[in-house]
């Protein structure tokens, strides 16, 4: 199976390691979209890491909406580690969503300033 090439994967031992700041800084540096892929709810290897990740993604979404970047650019997905095709499906879905939304407005603003 294949998934779009413009997705950069950052491995973490558990999505619970992801902090709100990681998501916000990614957008600050020009990312068009950020999504977290964690274990199925209830199956987190570390009990509640994926629940924390979901809450943090939601916090980031609220902030991104307020500042005008758009909360839909940040998403949380859940799957089992063996579901390869589903991973690819999420990647395709996210890529389509971001293409519709267009590039991160900050990237364009930075280019104009430079």
């Amino acid at each position, binding site marked *: 199976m294949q998934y779009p090439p413009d997705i950069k994967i950052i491995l973490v031992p558990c999505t619970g390691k992801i902090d709100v700041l990681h998501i*916000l*800084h990614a957008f*600050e540096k020009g990312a068009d979209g950020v999504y977290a892929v964690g274990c199925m709810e209830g199956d987190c290897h570390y009990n509640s890491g994926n629940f924390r990740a979901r809450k943090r993604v939601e916090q980031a979404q609220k*902030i991104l909406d*307020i*500042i005008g970047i758009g909360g839909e650019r940040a998403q949380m997905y859940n799957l089992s580690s063996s579901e390869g095709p589903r991973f690819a499906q999420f990647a395709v879905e996210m890529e389509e969503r971001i293409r519709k939304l267009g590039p991160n407005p*900050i990237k364009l603003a930075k280019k*104009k*300033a430079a």
Partner: protein
Amino acid sequence: MIVADRKPIEEIIEEVKDHEKILILGCNECVTVCEAGGKKEVGVLASALRMYFLNQGREVKIDEKTLERQCDHEYLEEIRDVMDQYDSVVSLACGVGVQFMAEKYHDCPIYPGVDTCFLGATEKRGLWTERCQACGQCILARTGGICPVSRCAKRILNGPCGGSTNGKCEINKELDCAWQLIIDRLKALGKIDEYEKLSPLKDWSTERAGGPRKVVREDVQE
């Protein structure tokens, strides 16, 4: 501790929108514990503001720093050398810290980043409740460690009023009647006969109603 809550980002944007060099200044004590103004919240606010201004087409300098406290001269002096780099500061400390900053750096506008709420404790993560109203004359010895000044809606001092129903206050079904709690606690401590002793009139002049207060300790002054 002093419990505060984050101000909405829109409100802070409105405060600083005309400035170009902003310092977001956090506090490592109470506001860190109630997750409103610590290093993490400073980072989140700074990142959000940077992105907001970039989106507006402005490159605004936004720096982050967290002091140990903002209510002591020594800690505020730590930023003396860098203050000339900024035209404004958003302080995420409680109202005390914001004011102390403003007194010390009176040439620089200092804006609040949190709403200071009350003196309280962490019942569990994400839930902080009021316990003390700093009345200046603590009577907890007589009430089994439960404060009728802060937890009784009427602040009465000699037992529950007629509105106390099933252990709840008449103003809100979910609010425990402080005096019911006190009576139960005194019973558990075996001190219920002390409940019968009348409390004298409270000296309310030590409360905020008597004007801004101070504590002077000449024995420790230089």
